[in-house]
């Protein structure tokens, strides 16, 4: 009997201990995440006010951090005196010049950061210090960008959030807030038309209009935390991250050494930097829109090569257009031309390859591709002609058949009349 009672007492004791442990942990967790600052500051006007909604969307708040993580103090206390006491480490408003180091106090601490996101880099502050922004900040320039200028403050979201200021789709706009402001940028003596130019570029079109997040934006070429203007030597490297074949061909081209000798940056020399438009075949050659003529003169060896390349590209483009037109006409007449239309994609691929091959700047480099494309268009054009011939044959056949049917009908009519007159 005593044994039974002991057993029950033991079990009851174990239950109480587990319950106490669970409640204790819950209270500790509550104390850790309690953020009494919002009790008052959510009701205050700007700049002291932070709404509960805004703060709730902050990545730091979502990770369980309170206002005290940056501003110091005791966010678990409901007493404003205690919560904002210097004794509790309360710092109040963070000075702008202190921001990079404050952010780095966590974000450069690998041990601390891996608790939140083990894959997050912790070298942002080191990179920042090498950037133009960081170097000027180190010299006491209080106007240059610090962490919060790009990432936001109380509405700071993860970069993967499309509403974040540093989400790829928003980066150019975020940079433009300073770099497109002529008055703000005046002391630095740099242009402020980058964003306006970028907005007209093929890259902006890909990013914003087509929603291709892999398309380049400011940070793709300039870096983000280590933001720096690409110099003459490394522009080709930046572009070649995506445009691999063009870069490889450029390295083998006569332009590589010539550009280096003249101090020209690689790709940018012909394609511009921020206002990179979709390239056209008119860019090469000796025509009025040809960029070749910026350096070459009419009749020199370079312009002759450029004209030869232009001719090869436009010949193939014209042949493709002619076949397209003929096949579309045949298709509109109801002819089945899906096979030659499919073949046309081979010709288009050949043209695409030839346009890439231009970057070797030798007309012989294009010949293989343009010849293959022209051979395909020859076949598709013949297929289109045959389809149109067949269409004409059908019309003639139909006409003759209808005449025969009409004659038969007339004959039958006469025969019936004769039959019924008897």
């Amino acid at each position, binding site marked *: 009997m005593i044994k039974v009672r002991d057993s029950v007492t033991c079990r009851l004791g174990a239950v109480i201990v587990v319950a106490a442990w669970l409640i204790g942990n819950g209270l500790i967790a509550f104390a850790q995440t309690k953020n009494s600052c919002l009790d008052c500051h959510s009701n205050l006007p700007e700049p002291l006010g932070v709404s509960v909604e805004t703060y709730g969307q902050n990545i730091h708040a979502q990770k369980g951090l309170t206002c005290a993580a940056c501003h110091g103090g005791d966010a678990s206390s409901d007493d404003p005196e205690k919560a904002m006491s210097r004794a509790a480490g309360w710092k109040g408003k963070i000075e702008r010049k202190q921001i990079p180091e404050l952010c780095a106090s966590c974000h450069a601490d690998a041990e601390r950061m891996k608790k939140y996101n083990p894959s997050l880099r912790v070298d942002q502050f080191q990179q920042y210090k090498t950037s133009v922004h960081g170097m000027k900040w180190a010299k006491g320039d209080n106007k240059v960008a610090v962490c919060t200028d790009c990432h936001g403050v109380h509405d700071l979201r993860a970069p993967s959030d499309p509403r974040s200021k540093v989400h790829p789709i928003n980066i150019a706009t975020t940079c433009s807030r300073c770099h497109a402001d002529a008055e703000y940028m005046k002391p630095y003596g740099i242009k402020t038309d980058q964003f306006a130019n970028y907005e007209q570029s093929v890259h902006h079109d890909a990013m914003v209009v087509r929603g291709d997040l892999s398309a380049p934006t400011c940070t793709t070429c300039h870096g983000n935390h280590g933001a720096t203007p690409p110099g003459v030597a490394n522009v080709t490297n930046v572009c070649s991250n995506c445009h691999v074949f063009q870069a490889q061909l450029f390295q083998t081209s006569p332009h590589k050494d010539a550009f280096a000798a003249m101090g020209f940056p690689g790709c940018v020399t012909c394609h511009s930097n921020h206002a990179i438009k979709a390239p056209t075949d008119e860019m090469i050659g000796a025509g009025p829109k040809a960029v070749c003529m910026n350096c070459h003169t009419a009749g020199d060896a370079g312009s002759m090569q450029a004209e030869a390349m232009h001719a090869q590209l436009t010949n193939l483009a014209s042949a493709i257009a002619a076949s397209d037109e003929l096949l579309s006409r045949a298709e509109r007449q*109801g*002819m*089945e031309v*899906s*096979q030659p239309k499919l073949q046309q994609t081979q010709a288009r691929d050949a043209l695409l390859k030839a346009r890439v091959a231009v970057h070797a700047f030798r007309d012989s480099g294009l010949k293989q591709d343009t010849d293959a494309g022209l051979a395909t268009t020859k076949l598709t054009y013949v297929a289109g002609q045959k389809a149109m011939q067949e269409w004409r044959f*059908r*019309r003639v*056949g*139909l006409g003759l*058949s*209808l005449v025969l*049917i*009409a004659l*038969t*009908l007339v004959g*039958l*009519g006469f*025969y*019936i009349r004769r*039959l*019924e007159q008897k």
Partner: protein
Amino acid sequence: MAGPVASVRAWFDERFPLDDLKALAQKKKVPVHHYSYWYFLGGMTLFLFGVQVLTGALLLLYYRPGADEAFESVQFIMTQVQFGWLIRSVHSWSANLLVFMAFAHLFSVLFLRSYRKPRELTWVSGILLLFLMLGFGFSGYLLPWNTLSYFATKVGTEIPAQIPIIGRPVLLFLRGGEDITGSTLTRLYGFHVAILPALATVLIGLHLALIQWFGMSVPPGVEAKWRATPEDRKEIRFFPNFVLRELMAWYVALGLLGALAALFPWGLGVKADPFASAPAGIKPEWYFLFMFQTLKLIPAKVLGMDGEMLGILAFGVVGAVALLLPFLDREKPFKTRRWITGLACVFLGYMAVMTVDGWVAK
């Protein structure tokens, strides 16, 4: 002395009732009145069915059922086979004209009240033939295995799945599995070229035999008038007088089919890709459009019942009423039951409006 032709004929006469059949054909008379031209519709439907059999048999020479081959084989027929484009286009156009003509024939018979005693079975066999023609249309639609036909069949086979209890087994039976696959294609191909033609042959034989046996029906009004003044009664011989006129109509249909095939060859579309998303505004063939549009417009819930199921049930009731129409028309002897004509008019108008609405709807 008898010639070789007479000898052969005599040989046949002893073994086959050729003269009896000839006598039967010549005995039959076709009444001549204001509505006589409606008599041509049945023959026209028969002619178009013959065109389907002939062109279908020719297509079979090259068509290969199977998800990997069907589209390519139709493409081959359209581009490489001599006059393949003509055969396929005529088959497709003729299929559409056939369904149109079958509906026109049905409504002409209905409005002229030709289903009356003793022609009830002729009507029933005709309605069953119409259902078979719709079955031909549905099963044949998937055979080119293009995007449109693939997704239309997908939507079409989902509709009977709404019926309680038997819905899912019906879907699995039609598809040969959960999804539209090569199994669905070979299955519908089997229906299209074997099962449905076999049933159609039996029913057409029965339908024609009944028409031949009972002769052409005369509309009640004309019949009453002829009874009052028998001298007004006019008739022509079925053979050759009516048959020759019918032949003229067939020639016109042949010309129309040739013109449609040459001027508007039936398109091939894009090969079906089961992994692609359905193109926007997918629609069935025009003759299913009024039902499809009705099911689209019907609310999700009607009086607590599933709207789609209610729609299917309603069309089932319409089909059953159509099949049993002669047995519902009990007024004697020839007094027109106006409500049948009225309902038929309403239904015809409904079909037309919903078809047009479905056609223009995006």
